[in-house]
Each structure stands twice: as C-alpha cells, then as structure tokens.
C-alpha cells in the first residue's frame, strides 16, 4: 500500500465525519450530564444550558424590588410583587427546553403561575389578542397570542428545578413556553402589555419566526 494514502485517508475521513456532523450531529450534552458526577458538572457545566444575552449587562433584580406591571388594554392595570405572585394559584410542570440554535435541555422542573390567573386580576378588554412580554434586559421583548399564552403548559415561572430561578435564567420571573423555541420564553419579565394586535419581538426583528413552534419554524425540520 502507498504509505501516503494512510495519512490522506485519515485526513479525508476526519473531514468527511465533520461535514456529516454538521447536518446530523445531535446535541449530546444532556447525555453527558447524566453520566458525569455532580462534582464534575459543577466545574464544567454539562447541563446543556447556554446563556444568551443581548445587552451589555445582565439584569440583577433583587426579589424584594421586583415588580411585574400588567397594563395596556386592561380595565384594572396592576403591579405585582413576587409575594403577590406567590399568593396566586401555584402551577408546576416538567417540560423540555429547545433552543433554536440546536441545543435542548430535557425535563426542566418549573413552578409559577398560569397567565389566566394573572389576567383574571386585571380585567382585560375584549379586544385583547396578544400579550407583549417586556424584559428588564432592554430592548429584549417578545409576544404570544392570547390563545398561545393560555395553553396549559405556558407559565410565568418563579422556580426552576426546585429553587428560585437563577439570575442567568431570568430571575426572579421568566416566561416558559415549551412548545416554542427558547427565544419566546422571555427572561427577566417585568411588564406584560395587553394588546389588540401582535408585535415582533427582538429576534423576530432579526429574522426569526414569530410563531416559533419547535420542529415547525425557522427552517428547522
């Protein structure tokens, strides 16, 4: 055999495997996370989460200072403290989180409130069709239609995996919309505006789909 073919074959084999991986490789961080001990995953995070921010500083909201303003087309616009939200019926769910860039975290445990219970307290107008969620991380925002926001697994979460939501995940309150890609699940939510028509969110102004259904939007199969 030609001695040079050995190295050439190895080189082309690596390239071929890499190009195939571009199209077929799946996120495996979740699998790694189940295999490595917790002491290892504390140092080298393998949970699968990536932290994406758009502003120069990450919001750092003290729980005591937190206010959620619900306004717009509401008969009784209101402002909720974290304690106020805690007095509303507590909802819990386990759902998967899918990022549009290809990674997922399965089986995240959330606790919080359903949007219906929030809306019930502000007397929304009949004309409301859309909810605009505004983040403390300006200018981040996104929206859901009223129908989407009232799906049974959509919530305003104040707990994640058994504890308060950590700062990088949107403390103290974030939206959770598991059926859509993660950019719809606005972190650090401090305002919900009730509207008669929809608005484009931050990433939607950068070309992403407004209806970001997992597996059926943004060109992803």
């Amino acid at each position, binding site marked *: 055999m030609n001695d040079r073919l050995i190295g050439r074959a190895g*080189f082309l084999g690596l390239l071929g495997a*890499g190009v195939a991986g571009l199209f077929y490789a799946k996120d495996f961080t979740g699998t790694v996370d189940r295999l490595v001990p917790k002491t290892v995953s504390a140092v080298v995070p393998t949970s699968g989460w990536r*932290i994406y921010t*758009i502003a*120069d500083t990450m919001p750092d909201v003290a729980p005591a200072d937190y206010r959620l303003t619900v306004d717009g087309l509401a008969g009784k616009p209101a402002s909720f403290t974290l304690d106020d939200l805690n007095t509303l019926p507590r909802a819990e769910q386990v759902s998967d989180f899918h990022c549009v860039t*290809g990674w997922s975290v399965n089986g995240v445990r959330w606790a919080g409130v359903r949007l219906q219970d929030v809306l019930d307290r502000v007397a929304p107008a009949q004309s409301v069709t859309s909810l605009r969620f505004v983040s403390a991380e300006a200018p981040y925002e996104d929206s859901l239609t009223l129908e989407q926001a009232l799906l049974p697994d959509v919530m305003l979460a104040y707990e994640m995996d058994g504890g308060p939501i950590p700062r*990088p995940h949107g403390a103290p309150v974030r939206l959770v919309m598991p059926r859509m890609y993660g950019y719809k699940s606005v972190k650090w939510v401090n305002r919900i505006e009730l509207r008669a028509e929809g608005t484009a969110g931050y990433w939607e102004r950068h070309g992403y789909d407004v209806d970001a259904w997992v597996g059926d939007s943004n060109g992803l199969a």
Partner: protein
Amino acid sequence: MAGRSAAAPARIHRFTLTERLLHWTHASGFLLMLATGLILYLPSLSTWISRRNLVKNVHIWTAVAWAVAIACIFVLGNRRALLADWRDAETFDRDDRRWLTGRRARQGKFNAGQKLNVIVTVAFALLFALSGFFLWLGERDHTFLFDGTGTLHDTLTFVSVAVLVGHLYLAVIHPSTRHALRGITTGDVDEAWAARHHAKWVEAERASE
C-alpha cells in the same frame, strides 16, 4: 566539525520562518478564539462577562483575521517548506507504523505522533472554519441553520483542548521532547538531540549538504 567548540553544540535547522509563523499565528488565533468562545459557551463565564455582543464580535473578527493571516502566510511564504511538511505528515511508512504500536523505530522530521497531530490540526482548522461560518450564516439566513452545526463546533473544541493539553505537556514538560520548543521558536535544534529523535531526517539533511 573541527571549528566548533564543545560549549556550542552543533545546531541543525528544523523550521523555516514560514513554518514558525504559521505555527504561532494558528496558536494565537486558537487561544484567543478559545478564550472568547468559552465566555460565550460556559454559563458561569457568560454570567460573569455579560457583554455577549462584544465578545461575539471579538470571536468572529479573530476568526476572520486568523483565516486571512494563514492564507497570506501560505501565499507569500515558503510554500515549498509547507507542502513538504504536509507530504511528510501524510506519509506513514513502516517505521511510523511500528512507532505507533509502541515499538522503537527511526523517525523522520516528524515522528508518527507529530504527523497525527498535524493531520488532526489541519482537519480541525478547516472544520472549525466551516462550522463557525455556518453558525454565523445560519443566524442570518435560516436556510443554513443546520441541526449539528453547534454540536460540531463544540465537539471540535472539547477534542482540541485535550490535544492542546497533550501538545503543551510534550512541548514544555516532557524531558525527551521539550527540546523541540527551541525548534519552533528559533528554527534550530540541537543536532545530537535530533539524531536521537529524528534520525532519518538528520541523515537525509547531512546527505543533501
């Protein structure tokens, strides 16, 4: 040999300026992209340094500068030396195959392990550039948002860091190989060392003199 004193051991030229420039350009580009990439990737670092847009821009522009610099070195530099190295790295003769199975065997300018390192490094550089380009493009045009782009880019990073740790150990710490660091910085290595570790290469160099 008569004119050389014992205090100044004979040197032999191992790497041209082009080869050394290529090595250090790739190394500095890699380290800068690794540092910025880890800030973008690891939640603890992303939280600590939250200026994601700035870090992302540094990462992307470093990639552009890295690719342009490497292309310039290839076009303007000593292409013959680079191509000869590549031909050398791709060729695994009987001695190289013996060496890889842990037996003693005479080696050329690169030992078989170094050849593997060259092949992996070049292949990974191309795949890093390809997956990085599609990460950038996919964010702008979703036709190019592929399932495995991020996973490929991340996997290349994990493996590269492991390879880098081994490379640094051999280049800086391991007693029998750390002399090679001199070759990639100054270009010259000690001839007696080279005769022990790269016998076939030293013989060929002497024969061509």
